[in-house]
């Protein structure tokens, strides 16, 4: 082969390589906007969940800290003051009129007042809160275990997920924050319905009067301003069908990583 052709071929191949690289990067932006891409890339969450289920035992606890580790200022994120007149009326009244409905696939649907919740055996834990944005804050949370509350209503065998419906509206269209966790997470010994932060009544900015606390998932799973808990066999019928407000915006349902 003559040197001229060879040099031309080299340039062509190197040029093609550089071009392919540029296309790849531009293409990734284009790809990102395709629902199929989001669905394919998003399916990796089930692989991650399966792997973590194998590697981490059902009841393995998130690390707990000491009082000295508590953040001086715990960052309040997401909704910090629900734009909801009914909620605000309840807040002004110290949540005396607040009721937590627990129903769905349960033998005994029930309704709880804040005093009912406070009279249950409470856990206090100092744990780390990890936001999907990347930061972490340590706080002390107090409240009953979710599994104790669920034991009172007796879940039916078909129940696979626990849905949390909240008081904070997320847009003008009347969509409220909601979340879902599986029964395994609901039964974890650090899954709390917290009514106190750092020994004080849970402030509005952190989800008063009651919020979900999980030891092993990211912050967006931990619904604030919980009004209604429903046990279901599938989260598909709710919202856009992905299991939660942020999941409907493209975040993964599994938030253990």
């Amino acid at each position, binding site marked *: 082969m003559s040197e001229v052709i060879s040099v031309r071929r080299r340039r062509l191949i190197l040029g093609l390589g550089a071009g392919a690289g540029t296309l790849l990067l531009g293409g990734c932006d284009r790809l990102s906007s395709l629902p199929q891409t989001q669905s394919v890339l998003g399916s990796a969450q089930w692989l991650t969940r399966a792997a973590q289920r194998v590697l981490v035992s059902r009841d393995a606890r998130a*690390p707990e800290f000491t009082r000295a580790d508590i953040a001086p200022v715990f960052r309040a994120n997401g909704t910090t003051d629900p734009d909801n007149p009914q909620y605000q009326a309840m807040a002004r009244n110290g949540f005396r009129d607040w009721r937590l409905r627990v129903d769905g696939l349960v033998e005994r649907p029930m309704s709880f007042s804040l005093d009912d919740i406070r009279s249950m055996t409470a856990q206090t834990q100092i744990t780390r809160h990890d936001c999907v944005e990347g930061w972490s804050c340590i706080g002390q949370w107090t409240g009953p275990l979710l599994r104790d509350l669920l034991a009172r209503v007796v879940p039916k065998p078909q129940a696979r997920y626990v849905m949390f419906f909240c008081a904070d509206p997320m847009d003008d269209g009347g969509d409220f924050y909601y979340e879902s966790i599986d029964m395994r997470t609901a039964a974890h010994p650090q899954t709390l319905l917290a009514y106190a932060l750092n020994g004080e009544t849970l402030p509005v900015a952190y989800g008063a009067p009651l919020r979900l606390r999980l030891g092993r998932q990211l912050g967006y799973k931990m619904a604030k301003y919980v009004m209604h808990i429903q046990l279901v066999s599938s989260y598909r019928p709710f919202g856009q069908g992905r299991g939660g407000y942020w999941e409907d915006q493209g975040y993964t349902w599994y938030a*253990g990583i």
Partner: protein
Amino acid sequence: MSAARRAGGRVFVYRHTVAVRVLHWVNFVTLTVMLMSGLQIFNAHPALYWGASSEFSHPLLSIEAMQDDHGHTWGVTTVGAHSFVTTGLLGWSRGGGGSFTERGFPRWATLPSDTWLAMGRLWHLSFAWILVVNGALYVLLGLSSGHLKRDLWMTRADWRSLGHTFIEHLRLRFPKGDEARRYNGLQKLAYLFVIFVVAPAIVLSGLTMSPTMDAGFPWLLWVFHGRQSARTIHFICAMTLLGFFVVHIAMVILSGLWNNVRSMMTGRYAIETMPASAAEPRHE
């Protein structure tokens, strides 16, 4: 190998096996996606801390947009006690519409370009699987085929000539003839450092950011000194890999762009023979 070819002063050796070549290019694409989606994720909270949690008033590094008394906005990057103006690159750069906007790393460095944490996480946490599988295959094949021991392990001679090799590299004089058949000590150390130090550190520090992994493997938090330290170390490892990549590309270009690229595509690597060399080429 024909005599004519040899008289031309070049022999070809088979440098990279097909496995190494495939794994190399998969690794290249995967690392690019990981780096750029990682910067997208970083942009959601462009600050780094030390310890278990985020002490917001004392970041180790922060990238932000700040307004001066005249209403002019600057991109400001702060490392420890030192602040730098980084307008156009870090903190304050052009957004999708062309006007300046507050963002950590600029559009061209992130995947996707727009601020879109959910999508950045989808890319990052799916390609992480490809990266780990690809890396594990490399190490397993490298061990079983003897590639790691034969081609990358440091020999006594490598250690002895390290200083000399370093000076030769500074002069941009690269090995020729028989010396070019094998990796030199500096090269080996760079590859070994990336494969056995940076790669495990970046994977483990990444996993330490997973709250579920922290429950199952609390020793990860001990190793990395807490989740926020793990995030910082993860970032440092990523920048180290980027540094390696820059040096790697520079060396590929300086030591013969086409020859290097061809050897990583077809396996064939040309060596310029030296007249004084008595050794017979073994290949081809």
